[in-house]
């Protein structure tokens, strides 16, 4: 089982969700986050005052998937989230030791 974490542009959330649903990913967690990589922040001057945003609002998706579909999911995210510009985001994969369903204590890939 692999945890897939993806930080993406806010405007791409709907596209990525749809793409993942199409390949059969049934559950995910969505978080509103702020951060930056190499993308520079944004400064706007309003009425003589500067309003700087160096932690840019982004959307983060987290899901734990059976190894069999991890690569498909990664491709789906890459294709739907890409704009080609700096600030598109990143995907991280980590191994997961165990998954347990709270309702009936089912374990393993069946719990995903």
């Amino acid at each position: 089982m692999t945890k897939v974490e993806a930080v993406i542009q806010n405007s791409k959330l709907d596209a990525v969700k749809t793409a993942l649903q199409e390949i059969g990913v049934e559950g995910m967690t969505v978080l509103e986050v702020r951060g930056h990589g190499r993308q520079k922040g944004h400064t706007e001057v309003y009425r003589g005052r500067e309003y700087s945003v160096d932690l840019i609002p982004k959307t983060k998706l987290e899901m734990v998937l059976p190894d069999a579909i991890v690569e498909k999911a990664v491709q789906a995210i890459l294709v739907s989230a890409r704009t080609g510009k700096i600030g598109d985001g990143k995907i991280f994969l980590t191994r997961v030791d165990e998954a347990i369903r709270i309702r009936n204590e089912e374990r393993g890939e069946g719990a995903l």
Partner: protein
Amino acid sequence: MTAASSLIGELRSFLAEESARIAHDFSRTADGRVAVSQRTRLVEEILQRSWHELVSAETAGPCGFALVATGGFGRGWLFPYSDIDILFLHADRGSEESHKDSVRQLSQELWDLKLKLSPASRTLAECERFDPENTEFTISLLDSRYLAGDRDLVARLRDQLIPRLVARQAKPLLQGLAEVTRERHAKFGDTVFHLEPNLKEAPGGLRDCNVAGWLALISSMSKLGDWPAANSLRGPVRKQLEAAVEFLMAARCFLHVRHGRDDNSLSWEAQDEAAARRIGVPQHEPLTAADWMRVYFGHARAVQRAVAQLLEEIPEAWSSIRSQVRNWRSRPSSPDFSVVDGMIFLQRSSSLQDPEMLLRLFHFMAHHGLKLSATTEHSLEQALPALAVAPPRGAELWLYLQETLLQPHAPEALRAMHSLRVLTLLLPELKAIDSLVVRDFYHRFTVDEHSILAIESLHRLNQSQSEWDRRYAELLSELEDPELLYLALLLHDTGKGVPSTNHVEASLEIAGHCLDRLDVEAEERSTVLFLIGNHLEMSANLRRDIFNPETVAAFAEKMGTPERLKMLCLLTYADIKAVNPEALTPWKAENVWQLYIGAANYLNRSADQRVHGDANGEKLARLRSLAPVLGAKYKEFVEGFPQRYLRVHSAEEILRHMEMADRLGRDAVQVDLRRGRHWYELTLVTRDRPSLFASLTGVLAAWGMNIVKANAFSNDAATVVDTIYFTDRFRTLELNLSEWERFKQSAVAVLAGSADLEKMLRDRQRGEKHARIKVVVETRIDFDDEASSTSTLLQVIAQDRPRLLHRITSCLSQQKCNIEIALIDTEGQMAIDTFYLTSEGKKLTAGHREKVAKALHADLRDLESGS
């Protein structure tokens, strides 16, 4: 098998059988009160039998030791899974010692039976001691009841000890109870209107029913020195509470049986089932979950009002703030209303026959933040049927409503009006969303409560310390017509009360009816409908890239004017804040703000997009209807004006400008002066020429006027329309009617070149004092050569002072800059002036810009130092 263990076995099966029977009966009859008293008797029997077995076989023994039911159990209200409150009462310490073992055995056995005991152990003397940190224990004694053991002991508790204790400690008891209640209410947002309410703890729930009883009981007991003979609550309040208790009992039993534990949350699924089984309303026709919830809310409201009433009427229960207020000298006075002990009374009880009195009453409430007395509420309820036949409507209603919405305590007044059914009388459009539960995972409150809460969020901005809130508070203070924003908030979700695919469309339609009924003027109506129609627009944009110039441009264009942009920004803030307390995360607040400033800057930088050919259809139609002949020349007149001109001025104003332009043949300088809502308005229509704007601002400076906002535009035919909004610092116009004419003549003379502006300015200067500077604003001069294709943008930010604008515009004139467009605004003590400049028909060169910047800095420094 020992006697004890065979008893346990017997009791266990007895408990199981009887509990099943009670549950079965309840599922048939849905009668909560019966189920609750049956369970009480069941547990009583078990406790008594255990006592006889393990503690003492004597009928009323042992001496000096007794078992007492307290709290809900004492009251006879034992719900299927609620805790069982008991008290082991000892005559003295000795008894406590000698019975230690039997108490332990008894508790053990009862635990083994899976009965959730909540036991306390006290001596009689300890009961008499009052601990302000533990008012709950003393209150639970009020419901105490003999179960087993020494009867005399319990009699002493009830007949002597408790009345004495209450008489002595009524004040702290009431204060403690009131405080705990208020805290609990605050945890639930001080409202009954939750989408998934907690029947026990939420305002208007069972706990509040008990609180009402306790407040009344303690109050009477302390006056009588003994238990009162009859129920301390009276008349209609008592009836309402009893009806509410019946309903809530049934609902809570239902929830306990359904969940199999002490879960008092009315989840959506539970609401569905309760409605299907008609819990609490057995005689009713089949009803939907939403209807069933309305019944619940009706009861909850009544309970909440009863508790609020008691908290107001019992002086000891007043919050500490209220007690202080009572001691203040100033008393709000009015010929219609009197204020006694912080509550509003009518001077003449029959006066509510007059619908206008009703409106004045609520305005008074909203202004002073006071509550209505019980008598006043009663009079109101009596007057409602007559008022319903001929409710107030039209411009008068709108006038009062506007004023009420702007008052500092408007949300409290609105809630009071709503709970007394007056709000839906005045605005029937709100009936559909009254207590409406709409199921989605974000909203915490019913639709009507959400709308009022949104209005409250804006009112609260001024008191907030948070950095975010202060930014939004500044925006709010700049609005010209905040009452339109409040009205839009009140109506924006009315569409959720009718079946439709798109609640925004539905809300627009409903709001349209409301605005018609209130006789709202065309421009104001258009603004309210704009806000309602676009109320989801900013949230939708948060899902896009808010730093992308195209996204920002598209959004800004939709907004059209800075005023509308501000209003929508605040509406979005309020809407999100009122969804649930955590909804406006810093992430959202930051994004909304960034989008706002991006759009605001865009509007400033794009003001020179001109009108060509395709004029705004709606305005054209309106103009034609106002003046068919002149209106037809609209296209000609408007050609070449920036879009901003069309958006900022109403059709009526544009018509006025056209009429003035038409008269230019006779008088080359047309000047119009009038009093607007917030400021005076001076409009100039004339042919363009150099230094025009500088001269105009000079006239105002010479007359001691303070310019707050201004717009300067010109069209293709070189006709200039300058509008200046100003305040009259020395009240010249206010105090002398004749000065109006003189002022206008003076302006015409200066602009025609026949008066000496410099002399006028010098004369004025002699009498001037400098205003106190509260916030120091640093001067900033910024050029932007990219924003416009034809002009160079200049933004000047400086300390607002008399003559500031005249200084800047004269300087620009001297530097040979032509002002194509001017957008002048003031924010507190900060002046924000934007100019679109050209020189010889083209943008300014880099060298020219530098010269201008230097000159401006120098001039502004001079102004600062007083020369």
